[in-house]
């Protein structure tokens, strides 16, 4: 985006501050128009594609999710993980038996074998290619490593957080660009969250739309009953009042936005086709992914060509009781992804979307230590991520699984006394995200504006999307 446009935007925002809510709304529209005009290259998109982010809050232990089975490596792993090591015979082998998924992941293993799922290994928050040496010299190392909130922010935005300053997330910036591919008249954004406000979907312009696992309700104020018309009018007038108070006008703006968006979405969902694919109603992720499938099923009614969904589940911060808890969590992930891929086949049969048009990927602020604390693991850095869908170069592990070696060349905490197996990632989240964005159709020119650290990496695409 040019400086000129940025200046314009700032001007608009300034005007909005002075003028209160109605100006604010007008401003939003202008900004939308502006972005549409600028991004006209996207307005001719004809096909449908969407990304689904499964965020695992707390830091997924990738080293127990995917374990080397080759004997020397397994021995090293076992020696370190001790009681928490997954017994070799329980692992679900992939890649000619060199590696194995956690036993809780049979559906994911099947998808992998069907080349519908890939592993992106040894990836994490990085500003530039990093070695133990550059780490020791503190050369462009992400600040506040190992802190949940900070690493989550950098994962989702590419920037270190700075209170009071919004760094939009890369999902939101993609949405800012691709918004013009969609033909929606109710201000419905490409970004839907099933799991509350998140930075990933926060755009410069785009404000994510929050839906519950069971859909969305109507505002009670909007009865069409004749005797309620006067009250409704009063409500509308309150929502058009001018306030010079930024918090008041922001809240008013949100309620106004909500009214417009929710009506359309609810109407579409009420008429959505029945989905017969089974989703376990006790599975927190599956419940959200079921609603994602429902929302995709009405994407034509909503005028959507490009969408970005966000689902998430917490409790991945397995400092204790990891053996049982992590098994349960991975089973939840397995059930969620398995059911979701099934429902995409169902949508495919209806001609609405296909497994090829929807790509699902996992995210988590960091991996965990290879060493343990007895019954859990602590905050690490490099992790493995999963990408599923028909468009994925599946049945492959992209990147290199690090050696199960404590205190080796990639062990970042060698600096801090006893090494703990906090591995420096090989690939950055920027590379991971850019690969997904390119598949979604973001232009080569726009990609560097979305991923601030990509310029520091020579490999701009990790190749897992073909």
């Amino acid at each position, binding site marked *: 985006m040019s400086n000129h446009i940025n200046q314009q935007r700032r001007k608009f*925002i300034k005007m*909005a*501050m002075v003028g209160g809510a109605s100006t604010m709304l007008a401003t939003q529209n202008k900004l939308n128009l502006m972005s549409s005009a600028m991004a006209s290259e996207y307005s001719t998109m004809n096909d449908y594609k969407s990304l689904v982010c499964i965020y695992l*809050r*707390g830091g997924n232990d990738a080293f127990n999710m995917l374990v080397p089975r080759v004997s020397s490596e397994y021995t090293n792993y076992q020696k*370190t*993980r001790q009681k928490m090591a997954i017994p070799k015979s329980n692992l679900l082998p992939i890649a000619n038996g060199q590696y194995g998924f956690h036993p809780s992941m049979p559906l994911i293993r099947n998808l992998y074998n069907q080349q519908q799922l890939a592993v992106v290994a040894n990836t994490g928050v990085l500003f530039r290619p990093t070695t133990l040496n550059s780490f020791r010299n503190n050369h462009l190392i992400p*600040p506040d490593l190992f*802190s949940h*909130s*900070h690493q989550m922010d950098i994962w989702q935005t590419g920037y270190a*957080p700075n*209170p*009071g*300053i*919004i760094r939009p997330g890369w999902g939101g910036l993609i949405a800012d660009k691709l918004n013009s591919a969609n033909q929606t008249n109710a201000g419905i954004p490409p970004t839907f969250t099933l799991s*509350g*406000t998140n930075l990933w979907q926060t*755009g410069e312009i785009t404000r994510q*739309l*929050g839906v519950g696992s069971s859909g*969305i*309700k109507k*505002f*009670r*104020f909007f009865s069409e009953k*004749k005797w309620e018309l006067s*009250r409704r*009018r*009063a*409500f509308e007038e*309150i929502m058009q*009042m*001018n306030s*010079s*108070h*930024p918090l*008041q006008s*922001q*809240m008013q703006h*949100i*309620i106004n*936005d*909500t009214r417009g968006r*929710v009506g359309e979405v609810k109407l579409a969902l009420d008429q959505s086709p029945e989905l017969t694919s089974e989703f376990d109603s006790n599975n927190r992720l599956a419940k959200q992914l079921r609603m994602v499938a429902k929302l995709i099923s009405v994407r034509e009614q909503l005028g959507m060509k490009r969408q970005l969904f966000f689902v998430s589940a*917490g409790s991945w*911060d397995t*400092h*204790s*009781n990891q053996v049982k*808890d992590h098994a349960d969590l991975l089973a939840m992930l397995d059930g969620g992804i398995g059911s979701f891929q099934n429902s995409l086949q169902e949508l495919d049969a209806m001609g609405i979307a296909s497994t090829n048009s929807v790509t699902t990927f996992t995210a988590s602020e960091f991996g965990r230590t290879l*060493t343990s604390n*007895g019954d*859990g693991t*602590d*905050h690490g850095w490099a992790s493995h991520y999963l990408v599923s869908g028909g468009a994925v170069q599946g049945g492959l592990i992209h990147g290199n699984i690090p050696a199960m070696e404590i205190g080796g060349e990639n062990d970042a905490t060698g*600096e*801090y*006394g*006893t090494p703990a197996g906090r591995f420096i990632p090989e690939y950055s989240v920027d590379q991971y995200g850019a690969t997904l964005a390119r598949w979604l159709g973001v232009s080569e020119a726009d990609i560097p504006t979305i991923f601030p650290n990509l310029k520091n990496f020579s490999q701009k695409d990790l190749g897992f999307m073909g």
Partner: protein
Amino acid sequence: MNKRSRHIQLIFFTCLLLISSNSHALVCSLDVDDNGQKDALTDGLLILRHLFGLSGAALTQNAIGANAQRNTPRQIANYLNTVECQQFFDVDGNQSTDALTDGLIIIRKLFGLKGDALIKNAISKNATRVSATKIIEWLDVDNRQQPEPKPEPENLNSADAARFLTQATFGPTDESINKLVETGSYKTWLKQQMATPIGYQLKSTQDYWLKNCPLNRDGKLINHPSEIVDTWEANHGRHNTWWQSVLHGDDQLRQRVAFALSQIFVVSDKPQMLQDSQFGMASYYDTLLKHSFGNYRDLLEDVTLHPAMGLYLGTLRNQKADTERNIRPDENYAREVLQLFSIGVHELNINGTLILENGQPIPTYDQQTIQEFSRVFTGWNYADVNWKTWIGNGSRLLPMIPNEQFHDRNEKELLNGAVLAANQSARADLDATLDNIFNHPNVGPFISKQLIQRLVTSNPTPAYVGRVARAFNNNGNGIRGDLAAVVNAILLDDEARNGHKKIAYFGKLKEPLLRLTHFFRAFDLQPNIKEGSFWEHVSCGRGEYPAYVIGHTWSNLPKLGKEIGQAVLRAPSVFNFYRPDYTPSGMPGKNTLVAPEFQLATENFVINTTNLLNYSIYWAKPTAGVNDEGHSWLDFSQVSPLANNADNLLNHLSRVLLSDTMSDQLRTIIKRHLADPGFQHHDNIKLDKTRDAIALILVSPEYLIQQ
């Protein structure tokens, strides 16, 4: 100096005095190391060295007094470089600060010199203050700037009272407004509130259980509370107790502060291990209630040793390293106690702003520190586990106790270079470590700012944070960490009382639970008569505990939390329901303002909360609960008679819901509707008008943003 600049200086000086006499504004004091004393050989030396241009260790070496609050070179330099100090140190008034004039005079003054001995050969040529008298007068200014009692407003009216009570309680009521106006003094009210008996939660949660489900694990009648088995089902009683306390408890201030603390010292019953510890959760909340006006250091200790926290963040049964098996201590509590409960990740000025070095924030600790702290928090277990056994279940109510066998006894390095000697007991290590955290200069601003955000405003000015942090650092009697002093400082501050008139962005979005409690208190929500609770209790030990019934609204308790996004001690993670630095997108002025509660303002939460309030309004009964014993009810009987006259009605509603600040515009809109010729009604017209007026106010930005 020309006339004009002298004039400006005079204005500056006058302002300085005005500010200082009214509040605890940042004024420069000669007590540079902030230890409560002005000494030549510490404070004087620091100023002199600073004026000679020294920095780093050369600035502070052997010049920091005992018990200094400001003690690092950076803190001292930051302080000395403030505009206020630069002005103040120009002792002879020549528009420049010089070591051999101003510095010399200051150190002489601190040595007690007077008259000619004070100023001899130390007045510059173009000085504007040349006599010893003038100089002493100038230097003694800061003596008058000690915190002074804040004058009470002469006429504390009902609008002032309602605003105050919106910040200090779960919502003003007719009765509480009248009482405060009658008392005529915020200070007296605060004092009375702090002396009000504490509405503890555990006993009431247990009583609720005994009343409704008096069976022990074997299905036999419970004879004694000790036979109660902790269980998920007791969450019903825990929530009922909380609602009872916040809606009807007399200790409103304490309940509100404890609720704020529960969003800083977060424990959540979302994880499995705490779901089944509902009495443990109630007991944890009691810990917060107990220390709400106590000392932060005691709070930190009791929080650290509470088994609910021990389970939540892993201190319970955390053990020393076993290098043979590559096992290290759990780092969870070590990290979060520093990041979230005490000092945060970056060094702060006393006013809560970041200290920058080359434009970058300075980390308060690194991974090494976390590893050292993780070794401190080893060797703690349930209090009632057999001392020989490390495993086994234990009490969720009793503070954890040490088991030395599992404690790491090696030397450990703490914050600011402090070292714990080897071979200390778990208890001694813990005490020294909590002292080390407690005395870090960040704690005052870090905790104060978040408490201000929870009670008063999302974006306090740095000066406001600084004033409260000073109260944290010293309650006026030399005591650090006195939370009563902090709460007083927060609520009595001029910014809290008058910020809405002066600051365009003052206030905060009411979080979902406060949005409900304010309304429920204003119209005296009563538990249903049949159950004596807000929620219906239908089966015992194995079924559902489903219903909250407000009016005819049916839903269940876990669902309520899910629908509005918030329930007490049920945050999604230790990072609470929202983050203190959250800024919504599209926010005007977004580059400076934060608005944490907006993190919950998603479409579904906004709709659900609004709908829930509407249901409660439209099903409220005109008269107290008659023929409706199965339902909790709101009472509009006091207010609906006023609906004969729209202005009377709106005046009353504005008083309890909007602190008497209903805008003319809002009033005009609602009046137009109430006078609509097509206005239809089901029950009686006054009640329906009352309902509509309330519903429209509750959805207005004026209600949603607490100012």
